[in-house]
């Protein structure tokens, strides 16, 4: 895209880990109800980045993520991870959906250990991972329950633990905290940030909360209205702040507020 110099340079650069090249999606193409959902999009980012996507409802954020997850073949262009073109879903790309999409016939522990069990990891390692991740999301005491016995926020934490127990290089999250109350939401933001710091995986994170995007992301990608294209990519410094962090202090800081307002203005400009 000629109006996106940052995208251009990163797309061309060698250290890009995830690469969207001219990716477009039209639902029901060739039919009377053809819906262009995503304009040809170029986007690339490096290993270890935490990329947050914001944009008006229906602009194609989920669509973009689904091409990377391998659930949806793009109508045009290609998506690649580590230089390999995406051709279907795989355990290298963990997905957390907006609705938890858990398996209610399996216990909490079996949900968390689903990936390692399916991939046939040694039993001791399966157990270790389940315990480690259930403890990190505070669900270890609920390991023998069933998902429907958990609150909405706990279910979402289980979905995150399930994705992380597989230790994917790339984590795709579609509005994972959308259904949570403000307090739980900020706690989850802190937990997710801590995990990301510790494990250094690459994250693509969709959210409607600009606050969340600016706090968590190393970069905020703002999309236009449908059919979505990338309006602007804004680097965000807060995720990389070293040492002890105080989420309330950061979010109240003048530079945080200024960046948040900058992003909000872009979205307002889109009338979304």
């Amino acid at each position, binding site marked *: 895209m000629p109006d996106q110099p940052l995208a251009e340079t990163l797309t061309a650069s060698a250290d890009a880990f995830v690469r969207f090249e001219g990716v477009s999606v039209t639902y029901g193409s060739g039919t009377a109800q053809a819906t262009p959902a995503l304009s040809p999009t170029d986007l690339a980012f490096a290993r270890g980045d935490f990329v947050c996507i914001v944009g008006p409802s229906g602009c194609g954020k989920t669509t973009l993520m689904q091409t990377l*997850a*391998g*659930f949806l073949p793009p109508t045009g262009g290609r998506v690649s991870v580590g230089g390999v073109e995406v051709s279907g879903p*795989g355990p290298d790309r963990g997905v957390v*959906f907006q609705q938890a*999409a*858990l398996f209610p016939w399996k216990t909490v522990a079996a949900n968390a250990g689903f990936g390692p069990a399916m991939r046939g990891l040694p039993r001791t390692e399966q157990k270790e991972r389940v315990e480690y991740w259930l403890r990190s999301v505070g669900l270890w005491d609920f390991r023998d329950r069933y998902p*429907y016995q958990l609150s909405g926020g706990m279910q979402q934490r289980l979905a995150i633990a399930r994705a992380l127990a597989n230790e994917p290089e790339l984590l795709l999250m579609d509005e994972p905290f959308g259904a949570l109350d403000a307090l739980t939401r900020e706690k989850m933001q802190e937990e997710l940030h801590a995990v990301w710091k510790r494990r250094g995986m690459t994250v693509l994170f969709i959210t409607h909360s600009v606050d969340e995007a600016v706090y968590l992301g190393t970069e905020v990608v703002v999309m236009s209205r449908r059919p979505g294209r990338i309006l602007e990519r804004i680097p965000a410094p807060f995720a990389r702040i070293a040492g002890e962090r105080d989420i309330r202090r950061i979010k109240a800081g003048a530079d945080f507020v200024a960046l948040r307002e900058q992003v909000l203005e872009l979205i307002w400009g889109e009338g979304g």
Partner: protein
Amino acid sequence: MSLGGLRRHRAGPRLALGCVSVAFALLAWQSVNTFHIIPSGLLASPAQVVAALIDISRHGYRGTSLGEDIGATLLRALGGFAVGTIVGVPLGLWMGMNRFAAAGANWIVQFLRPLPPLSFLVLLMLWLGTGDVAKVGLLALTAFPIIASATFAAVAAVPVQKIQAAASLGASRGQIFRHVMLPAALPTISTGLRIALAAAFSTVVAAELMAGSDGLGWMIFSASQFLRNDIILLGIIILGLLGMALSSLLLGLDRGLIHWRGRE
């Protein structure tokens, strides 16, 4: 009233209400007799039916014992149901997993499903004789399209996100089938099985009415020729109770095993 109250009923009042309504029905039956609303030659009294029960359980009915008649009817119904399940569930699963299987089999299944089974009993008797093979075959034909349709619909309705979640966790196609599709479809399959068993059970009686020398259906039909309406009523009551027992057995299995029914 809370929304939960729409679903949950406490066991105590439910049991009491059930007993009251049964007592009321028995009372109504007795009054019809006592006040000769229907001539007693056409409607036996409760006492006469109990007498018939005692008589038949001691001496049998026309050469077969009551146990044999009940056993014959049950075995036929369950046999046909089992064959229908063994054919219907895998076919429905295959149709749900494979578009070509669905396209190929669905018309046939949907053609068979609304047909009254008795309409092809005559054909089956011509081919297979009037014995148990024809009857079990008929019941299998009754149960199988119901089971196959329910299973097909169940698999088609599995939320795509759950399948995607499993795939992105590294599950193979076979693992997705076994760990996601099958358990997600199980509640609807189980409902289909219950409907199919009820259908098979009501058809077995009709089949025994048309041909046979044992079974509850045969007993009722035979009694009608001798105007023994005490035995007819007895047969109907036993059939109803058996049907209830069978369906609550399946319901109990469903409730016990499929704990995730209706829950996310």
